[in-house]
């Protein structure tokens, strides 16, 4: 199976690899997936007082498509409001990276990671976690 140019680009030059201070109340961390499934994503966001995501970082254990999906997600998150970030759909990632059907689960995981990070941030700041409408698994 050949990878799309965009997957190769994100894989070769991943954006925003790294770690934010997870103890900070401004930082939300989402850790999704499982080692035995071959995919684990950790996505972190830093949010300012206006509910805008000012920074995003990731680390991913997984295939090229999983790494590219999380790299793309961090790129999209920066500068977005929490509400806009919540609206990112896995199919947007599939489309942007031209993921084949067997790799759609990578995009699902990235969407789950975004939502998990946002909810972690909300809970830390005394807000109710947002109930997720759809369950992918």
């Amino acid at each position, binding site marked *: 199976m050949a990878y799309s140019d965009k997957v190769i680009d994100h894989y070769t030059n991943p954006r925003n690899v790294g770690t934010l201070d997870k103890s900070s109340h401004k930082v939300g961390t989402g850790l999704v*997936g*499982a*080692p*035995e499934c*071959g995919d684990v994503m950790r996505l972190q966001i830093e949010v300012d007082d206006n509910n805008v995501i000012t920074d995003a970082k990731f680390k991913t254990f997984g*295939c*090229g498509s999983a*790494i590219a999906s999380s790299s793309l997600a961090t790129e999209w998150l920066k500068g977005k409001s929490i509400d806009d970030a919540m609206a990112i759909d896995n199919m947007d990632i599939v489309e942007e990276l031209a993921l084949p059907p067997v*790799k759609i*689960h990578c995009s699902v995981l990235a969407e789950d990671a975004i939502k998990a990070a946002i909810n972690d941030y909300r809970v830390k700041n005394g807000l109710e976690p947002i109930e997720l409408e759809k369950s992918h698994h």
Partner: protein
Amino acid sequence: MNLPIYLDNNATTPMDPRVLEAMIPYFTQKFGNAASRNHHFGWVAEEAVDYAREQVAKLIGATEKEIIFTSGATESDNLAIKGVFEMYKDKGNHIITAVTEHKAVLDACKHVEKLGGKVTYLPVKEDGLVDLELLEQSITPETILVSIMYGNNEIGVIQPIKEIAAIAHKHGALFMTDATQAVGKIPVDVNADGIDLLALSAHKMYGPKGVGALYVRRKGPRVKVTAQMDGGGHERGMRSGTLNVPGIVGLGKACEIARLEMDSEAQRLSAMRDRLEASLSELEESYVNGNVQHRLPHVANISFKYVEGEGLMMAMKDLAVSSGSACTSASLEPSYVLKSLGLSDDLAHSSIRFGLGRFTTDEEVDYAIEVTKKAVTHLRELSPLWEMFKEGIDLNSIEWAEH
């Protein structure tokens, strides 16, 4: 050095130019049907097939009448298992095999189960070897066949074939072995080893694809299999179908070359493999899978913990290897062979198989070491699991959301 580098010689091997040279006349000038008994063209083809039969037989210590040409090891495995089951059904209906066998054996056994047969799938020990005591305990008066592979395709471990054959024979069962990965790489002798049926393939030993053979013992005991392909009664009635003369000539030549060069080649390959393995073992948290004493000279299967195999292969640009991870398959299930060694799923997902071959050079191995080390290091920088490991977090203490 030309890129990309092929290090997947357990999947298939390039054809040796000497094999190709031997085959070429049999496509155009010497194109006869080996079954045409009444003219020159048929005789020439038949002579070539007979010669190849001798070349194949000689490699495994058999006689030429014991060699049945097939389309490859998958067909040989099917013919042996289904053919023995059908031929000996009055004697019993039980077959014993192992969980680490190739799918051709496992699925032929599943077919036998559908036909009313009983199959025992033996587990293996942590090093990939069959437990001989467990094997003996599993034999019943109904057992007609024990089928255990010679060398494993994923991890390269060599089973104690002689001992397994002796146990089978002690209880009146036949012994068959899928020797696809072993024949031509290490000495295999059907008499010394006590093998009754043996499957082999040309394309794993620098011959062409689409041709293989089944060895069927003729003396002590005389073994018979029921044909699975009906037709003109070729191959002593055991496998009908016009013989693939150029392919068979290629298989014969490949066997001859392997026999003559095996000793020096096995030494060269195992030295290269050991060097590769030693260098890659310098990386923290890397584990060699399978028994390291009893194994084929050209295979190294290594897990690099905290990186995922498919992602790793993508970073090992210009290296053709394979992984026990199966991120592309719908099931997302990692290698059943590695899992049967008791490897956790995450280590199975982190495995890479290097298969060296006749045309692999030292320079290529050096390059592979360098690229692999870089790739593992790079991907660990991206891996949240590596970071947690480095922080001393026990990954088993985390509640993972399995998906």
